[in-house]
């Protein structure tokens, strides 16, 4: 028996340990590279941007001179946009997930839809911009408005919300659904009273992460005509608007030494938003960690 041979065993063990070491080093290096890049990014942004941070920077509209320019329109625009995206994509996304998980018969069609939703999550964001341009701007005639931007962005994050909500629904133990059904509850009663409450934390976490994706996206909004500089806040959903990443983008591409510094300050604000949203998502996830 080769396994019994001490010498052989020793050699094999040595080979296995060596292999393990190689992989560990590899993974460690990869992680380090990521961390270093992230640290560099943050350092660069902070060192360039903090100088321009002030209350005025948050309170002011865009302006022809860097020292007067502010991010107000972008911040408010981003928040409005989030609002539209949240309402639309969560309602549609969660409904879709409920339908697919709880109602749809498992079959070829469902599998096909499922596959396409997953593929949709991988489609480049510009493509969603083009879709929005064609459908919301030209077909529905919403113009280059906040509504167009919000709906386009909703389409972009919809797959993320559907998939994460489906996962949340799937993680609800079937024993709970059975308990409810066995008491004569209708399907909807079971979903509403047992499944949704149990899946809610997962859904909220997924939705917040989806929204934080939307808050940082630029490309599709450029395509559907978000303004780079506006001097008033949108009054209604059909007004023109801008968002943080687009203002930042416009500042970066301006000539002169001071604009990039302003852009860095804008990035800091954007990062703060992202950080807050992700923290909330993590807190919710930890608070409601599965208790079954």
């Amino acid at each position, binding site marked *: 028996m080769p396994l019994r041979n001490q010498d052989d065993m020793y050699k094999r063990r040595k080979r296995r340990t060596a292999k393990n070491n190689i992989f560990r080093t590899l993974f460690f290096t990869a992680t380090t590279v990521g961390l270093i890049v992230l640290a560099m990014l943050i350092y660069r942004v902070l060192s360039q941007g903090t100088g321009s941070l002030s209350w005025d920077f948050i309170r002011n509209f865009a302006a022809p001179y860097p020292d007067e320019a502010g991010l107000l329109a972008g911040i408010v625009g981003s928040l409005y946009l989030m609002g539209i995206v949240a309402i639309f994509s969560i309602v549609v996304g969660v409904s879709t997930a409920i339908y697919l998980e709880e109602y749809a018969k498992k079959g070829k069609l469902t599998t096909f839809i499922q596959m396409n939703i997953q593929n949709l999550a991988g489609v480049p964001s510009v493509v969603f911009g083009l879709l929005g341009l064609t459908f919301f701007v030209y077909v529905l005639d919403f113009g280059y408005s906040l509504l167009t931007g919000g709906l386009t962005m909703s389409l972009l994050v919809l797959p993320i919300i559907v998939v994460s909500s489906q996962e949340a629904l799937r993680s609800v133990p079937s*024993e*709970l659904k059975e*308990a409810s059904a*066995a*008491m004569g509850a209708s399907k909807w009663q079971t979903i509403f009273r047992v499944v949704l409450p149990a899946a809610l934390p997962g859904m909220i976490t997924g939705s917040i992460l989806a929204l934080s994706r939307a808050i940082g996206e630029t490309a599709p909004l450029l395509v559907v005509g978000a303004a780079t500089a506006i001097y008033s806040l949108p009054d209604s959903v059909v007004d023109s608007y801008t968002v943080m990443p687009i203002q930042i983008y416009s500042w970066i591409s301006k000539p002169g030494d001071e604009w990039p510094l302003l852009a860095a300050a804008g990035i800091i604000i954007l990062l703060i938003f992202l950080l807050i949203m992700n923290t909330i998502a993590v807190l919710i996830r930890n608070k409601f960690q599965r208790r079954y």
Partner: protein
Amino acid sequence: MSTIAKPIVKKQSEEKTIEKDSVFGVSNLNLWYGTDQALYDIHMDIYKNEITAIIGPSGCGKSTFLKTLNRMVEMVPIVKTSGTIKYNDENIFDPKYSVEDLRTRVGMVFQKPNPFPKSIYDNVAYGPRIHGIKNKKDLDTIVEKSLKDAALWDEVKDRLHENAYGLSGGQQQRLCIARCLAIEPDVILMDEPTSALDPISTMKVEELVQNLREKYSIVIVTHNMQQAARISDKTAFFLNGELVEFTETDQLFSNPADKRTEDYITGRFG
């Protein structure tokens, strides 16, 4: 495998004279999971205010049969059935028959305690609420009565609004029984309700089941033959999806008619 505690032999009964009401009349029942047949041509009458035990080796179709009685088995999409099950003279497979109604009258307690991640109160009030009872006083009354009937009231009356997951396994199972009683069923189906419990909790649940007999008809699956012998009036022995023998519990354990039953209860297999 231990042998059965000394079976109490009753005199061979000509007591068929008292016509008992049957709650379930099962005839020609066949069931398939996809192409795999799990139940073969079952005929069986289940009587009112009796405890009917179902025994048999694991995989013989006990749970499947039990879940057919309240059509919970249909939660598995590939299930197909043929034959009839009459519940109070109505065929439950009739397309017009409402499963919600059926399950309101035929309650179920599962193998693993499965309370909702809600308070003790909300667990028991769940059933009444889904059936439209909103009045706080009414709910309070039902909750208290159900918990008392499930012999759990004294242990939980001071913490009704705490999460049910804080209860022990045995308490959780009695909570599930209380939750089931709260919908005021006529029949209670129990699928190995004590298999996940320690001996003391098992004893409590067994006692409880026997007390429930007065008001309810109970069908209980167990792979513990002593348990069947201790608590049931009639016992059905299933093997490989067939109902081999179904008779008075005393008789089945003391004087089985079928060789396979005898082999099983004497521990020759299973």
